[in-house]
Each structure stands twice: as C-alpha cells, then as structure tokens.
C-alpha cells in the first residue's frame, strides 16, 4: 500500500488520529505523509483547526446573565424537584 494518495490519506485522517486504523494502513499513511510536503502542511493545519476554534469560541458567561440565572434558580429551588 505504498501508493496511497493524498486524497486517500485525507479520507482516513481522523481515523488515523483516533487510533482506529489497522497497523498496515497506519504505516502506509506514515510512509506517504513522511515524504509529502503537501500532506505534512495539510495535517498540521487540520490538527490546528479545533484548537483555533476552541479558543475563539471560549465565551465567558456575562455577569447579568449569571445574575438572572442564579435568581431564577433560587426561586426554583424553593420548590420541590418533583412537580
């Protein structure tokens, strides 16, 4: 399986990173990517993607939202959980 293409490697990339591929397939990907600057660049940006989006969407709860929720919960918890 040394003739693995970039396209096939991309198809298998998540399974590769999750460790669910057979050893033979994994090794064929390692061989291809090791000698392919395009795949090396692609894999780096693919791996970077979740982190960039995670950091960019790490919203903090606004103070007024927090206050309103806690007031709501204080009222709620005066009642019994079973309606």
């Amino acid at each position, binding site marked *: 399986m040394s003739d693995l*293409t970039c396209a096939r490697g991309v198809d298998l*990339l998540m399974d590769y990173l999750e460790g669910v591929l057979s050893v033979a397939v994994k090794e064929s990907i390692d061989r291809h990517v090791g000698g392919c600057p*395009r795949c090396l*660049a692609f894999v780096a940006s693919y791996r*970077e*993607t*979740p982190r960039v*989006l995670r950091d960019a*969407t790490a919203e903090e709860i606004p103070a007024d939202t927090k206050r309103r*929720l806690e007031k709501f919960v204080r009222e709620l918890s005066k009642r019994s959980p079973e309606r």
Partner: protein
Amino acid sequence: MPVPDADQSDETLAALAASGDGRAFELLVGRYEGRIYRLACRLTSETDAPDVLQDTFLQAYRHLGEFRGASRFGTWLYRIATNVCLMRRRAASRRPSESLESFLPRFDENGTHADTPETLSRMSHLDERLDRERLAERARAALDRLPETYREAFVLRDLEELPTAEVAETLGLEPAAVRQRVHRARLMLRGFLNDLAGRMP
C-alpha cells in the same frame, strides 16, 4: 441529614438536591453555569444562550430524581443541555446557510493535493495574527455555516472535548458516524480558516 458544602462531589450534591436541598442545587449551578453557557453559545448563539441556560437547569431540577449516578453528573447535565440546544435549533425555521463545501481540500486527477504546501498551511499562528474580536466573530459565523449535524458532532467532540464514545451516545449515533461528521466539519473549517488567513494583509 448532611449539609451541602463546596467540597462535596457533584453526585453527592445531586442526591441532596433531589431530596429537596435547594442550596445543594445552587452549588451545582455555580459549578456548571459557565460551561453550559459556553456550550449553548457554540451550539446555538449568544442570543439564545441565556434561555438555553435557564431551560437546562429547569429540566435538570425537574428530573433530578431520575439521575441515578450511572454516569457522572456533568455528563448527564451536558446531555440535557445538548438536547435543549438541538430542540431549539430544530424548532426555529432556519434559513439554509451558505455552505462551506467550497473550502474542502482539492485534489488533482492523481489524488494529489492541488494546492502547494505554502498555501495549505497559511493558517499557522492565525490567532496571533488576527485580533481576538474579529476571529471570534468569524468563528461563530463559520459554525453557523456548517450543516447542522456536523456542527453538533464537531462542537461536542472538538470544542467541548468529549470522548467520541460519549458524543455518539449523546447524539444517538455509532462512533464511526461521529468520526465521519467531525472529520467533514474539520475539513470545511480548516479550509475556511486557511482561506481567512490568506485574505489577511
């Protein structure tokens, strides 16, 4: 009866809350409100997040008696919050979003990447080159443009960092289907971020 305090486990507090201890429930809310808010922003929007938050804790409170400690309290609560988000999105008449398909990787007839290594990795250190507000705004817009089923899987797996098996259970899918959806989402988002980086001065 034990008195709730901040050192007790979620599961102990949940049991106290289920037996009518309001203070125990308030402690749990304090532990999770930030995380549930962030999840709600990622799965719905900043506009919807406050309502999602209230609804999640209301549902959790009502169903405390059904929490048996078979899973962790956090897992149970995440599942409620996810369902509240999904119901909300499915109930809203959503305009078809402009697809991210055009950002999928391109290959030539031999299956080789059509782009050069330089153009494939333009996005490295993107978050150091783009100001925070603008990147946050573009990230939200990109999530909105994902097909709904990809977004759910991607947010839970990659942004909330839940294990694939847990995402599968939450969404009622096989793990292989979760991997497939997360993968497609990553491909589209990678292309989107790379393109964004390429259009920066």
